[in-house]
């Protein structure tokens, strides 16, 4: 059994998490799940394919891979297919969402959820205040 955690670019979907923060999140998750981590894989900044993880998998045959979020999955179909094909037996864990699973259907479901959230309208909390949010709640619900 070999278990890896993976750090990626600081920008993770809607989150901005520095790599030491990512490590804290994943290690806390592993501890809670009683999973012993053996490898720490740093994906390069701006990379969004999990390619390093796949190359390392060829040598180390991971059984479990822990990431911070489903937002770190490749979003382009070709890249996700590569991950699915190369790592179909690997159990993926996503610490923030608290979900895990393996195989094509699980990863496609995760990506589908990512897209549902990416497609949702977002309010910018830095450009509003409580009164404005209250008025929005009242006006948009009538």
């Amino acid at each position, binding site marked *: 059994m070999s278990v890896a955690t993976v750090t990626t670019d600081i920008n993770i979907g809607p*989150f901005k998490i520095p790599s030491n923060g990512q490590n804290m999140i994943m290690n806390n998750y592993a501890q809670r799940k009683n999973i012993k981590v053996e490898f720490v894989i740093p994906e390069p900044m701006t990379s969004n394919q999990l390619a390093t993880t796949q190359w390392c998998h060829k040598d180390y045959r991971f059984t479990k891979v822990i990431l911070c979020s489903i937002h770190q999955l490749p979003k382009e179909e070709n890249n996700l297919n590569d991950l699915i094909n190369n790592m179909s037996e690997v159990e993926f864990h996503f610490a923030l*969402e*608290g979900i895990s699973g393996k195989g094509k259907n699980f990863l496609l479901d995760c990506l589908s*959820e990512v897209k549902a*959230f990416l497609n949702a*309208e977002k309010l910018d*909390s830095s450009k509003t205040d*409580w*009164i404005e949010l209250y008025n929005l709640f009242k006006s948009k*619900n009538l």
Partner: protein
Amino acid sequence: MNLQEQIVSGKGYAILPIENLDNFNKLRDQFIEKMQLYTKEKKLDKLRMIMTSMSKSQINDLMVSLLSFDQASEILVDSCKNIVSSLSGDRIFLQRRANIIFNLPGEDQRRQWPHYELMSGVSPFTYIMWAPFHDLDDDGGVFYLDQNKSFEMIQEEHQKGIVNGPAILNKEYNEKPAKLKYGEVIVFNPFILHGNINFKSNLARIACSVRFQSIQKPLLQKDTDYFKFYKV
């Protein structure tokens, strides 16, 4: 006044019967099952009594361990399908891990500070459902300020440039905790000020709460870390 009007234009909260009590019973029973890791007691009132003698750190450990009870949010929503869909439609962002919340009697216990749900970063279009696992015969429940009073407090603080400051934390609340019966749920909007008060009892209070919003409405700060997509 229909539910949407009560929650948006009226008091801001409503107490309603749980539609599918058999389903809600399963939620309570599964909670008791999860508690078997800590005690072999299967009677809820006995569990409530045992909890009153637990330390704060034991209670905290218990609440953290219950985060793995990830079916709880779906069971609670499925117990109240019409309530949820009348407010948010049938395609929702649902809180991944419902909160199982304990309130212990006596002074110096952990308790919910008075607060609005919005402060956590949920969207203004998020609604909250809260249901106890037993009758609330004492003051162990939650008090709720109606929408007008809650908004007055928001405005008062806003003018001072603060949120959830001393005015809210230190205020003497005259409101009594809502005395829900088992099988009732309270639904409220994220601007409703609510919290606990110290209470006397031999039993802890146990309740479950979950948050949801329509996928057609905008998100604020909470994302996949907190919500998941769910079809009611």
